[in-house]
């Protein structure tokens, strides 16, 4: 499919109803291209779930959306600005309006839970310590961790770490919240609790949420829209219902959890891992 023409006058780009607009996004690591022209939009206040198998580029897409990777081509519009082309100080300004919850939680091990949540407030706002203290308690209460301010991250369970990381991501009252595999490595009950928390946050604060996951049950529960990435391109997008109805073989295979056919030769295995066509078949 040819790339769509890129226009700065595109009406959807400046529309307040669209929180994120990604256009013809290409991302490269060295000579290897991971994303080959990704396009999608996220309406404000909705939850987008990015799904896909391992190595399909969904984590790279998320890292690019929060500015940890720079695209080689394409545009990422957030808050009416092209995130991909901003200078470092401008990008930092925009980052203060987004929150990110990492797969491992990424809490700072040398700081208590409360200090972790307080960190962005101390660094970016003129709030005094007593106000910061109140905000920290409020944020921890929102994620169900009241009273854990003085715990160190190492003293928390996996699910609690993720909740603490969400509290930190919420500290600056972000307009967009990103989640990387929120339920990875958690038991089903804790994972369901996190899904509920994401739904609660969306309802309470009307935050735009982008979630990367490969947990199907969780994805269909929390999503307003979904995209399915496959080998660095969008294989399908739509509402959860539209995806359920989708008859594309690759989409069906993913949603129906059909395993890959038996790997016949080393070169097929290589192709499965890299998503690239083999140079030649013997």
């Amino acid at each position, binding site marked *: 499919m040819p790339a769509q023409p890129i226009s700065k006058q595109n009406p959807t780009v400046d529309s307040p109803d669209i929180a994120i607009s990604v256009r013809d996004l290409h991302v490269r690591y060295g000579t290897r291209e991971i994303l080959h022209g990704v396009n999608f939009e996220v309406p404000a206040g909705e939850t987008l779930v990015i799904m896909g198998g391992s190595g399909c580029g969904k984590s790279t897409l998320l890292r690019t959306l929060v500015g940890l990777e720079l695209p080689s081509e394409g545009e990422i519009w957030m808050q009416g600005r092209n995130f991909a082309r901003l200078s470092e100080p401008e990008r*930092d300004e925009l980052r203060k309006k987004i929150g990110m919850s990492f797969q491992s939680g990424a809490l700072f091990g040398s700081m208590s839970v409360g200090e972790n949540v307080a960190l962005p407030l101390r660094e970016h706002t003129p709030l005094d310590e007593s106000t910061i203290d109140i905000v920290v308690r409020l944020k921890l209460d929102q994620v169900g961790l009241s009273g854990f301010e003085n715990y160190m991250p190492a003293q928390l369970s996996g699910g609690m770490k993720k909740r603490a990381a969400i509290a930190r991501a919420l500290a600056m009252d972000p307009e967009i919240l990103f989640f990387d595999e929120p339920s990875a490595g958690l038991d089903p009950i804790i994972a369901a609790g996190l899904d509920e928390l994401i739904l609660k946050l969306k309802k309470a604060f009307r935050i735009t949420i982008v979630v990367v996951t490969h947990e199907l049950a969780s994805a269909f529960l929390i999503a307003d829209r979904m995209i399915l990435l496959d080998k660095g391109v969008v294989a399908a997008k739509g509402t959860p219902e539209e995806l359920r109805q989708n008859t594309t073989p690759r989409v069906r295979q993913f949603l129906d959890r059909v395993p890959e056919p038996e790997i016949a030769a080393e070169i097929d295995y290589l192709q499965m891992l890299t998503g690239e066509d083999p140079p030649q078949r013997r």
Partner: protein
Amino acid sequence: MPFIDSIGEATIGGMAYVGSLARLTGGAARAVFVEPFRGHPLRWARAIHQAMSVGVEAIPIVSLISFFVGLILALQGAYELRQLGALQLVASAVAISMTRELGPLMTAIMVIGRSGSAFAAEIGTMKVNEEIDALETMALEPVRFLVAPKFLAMLLMMPCLTTWADFMGVLGGGLFGVTSAGFTWGTYFHATLNALVLRDIASGLIKSVMFGLVITAVGCTEGFATGLGSEQVGRSTTSAVVKSIFFVIAVDLVFTAIFYFTAPQH
């Protein structure tokens, strides 16, 4: 010519690495000396914590090693000086060798083992746990946040530790002087002070500051370069120690040469 190519590639790689050290040091210096005046205060509590760990906690081992090195210098010096009947010169030999060279160098080696490796391990672990990414997504500059307190702690603590190491080295030499070379403690210290000029001590302290900068830059650069997986942290730590020792010796050579060629002729 593959051989020439590989020399060229290694040279370019080496230059790029030195460039990255300089860039990191520049960024840290900016965060310590410029950014606080632009509304980005330094993390003083963290800097003090680092200074305690880099400096104060290193005092016992630096004292012991420097005392031994001073004593060894005296023994080795006396072996030769005795033949010339100039055993009384042992005090000045120890004093000059310690302050100009071995005080700063031995301190740097100790600090590499204790703190350079710790810097690489700390930042490497943070990298593996996505904490560095988390800092960036929170619009917090990792250099200002992590490297600047270490940079300031090193800048302050290296000259202090080196001065202490010089003193302990002289004390080590003094033990030999008093027990085997006919000095009293009073005459030994008097001979030491007579032998030293300000330039000896100053050149050692200038070196120690440079060593501190090199250790911080290499330790932190190796930490940031940590790949994915916890076994990579071990690799970064080892690499930080080996490269720091190399760069400290190289910087030592450069500064010793500068001090030699700029010294006033007697």
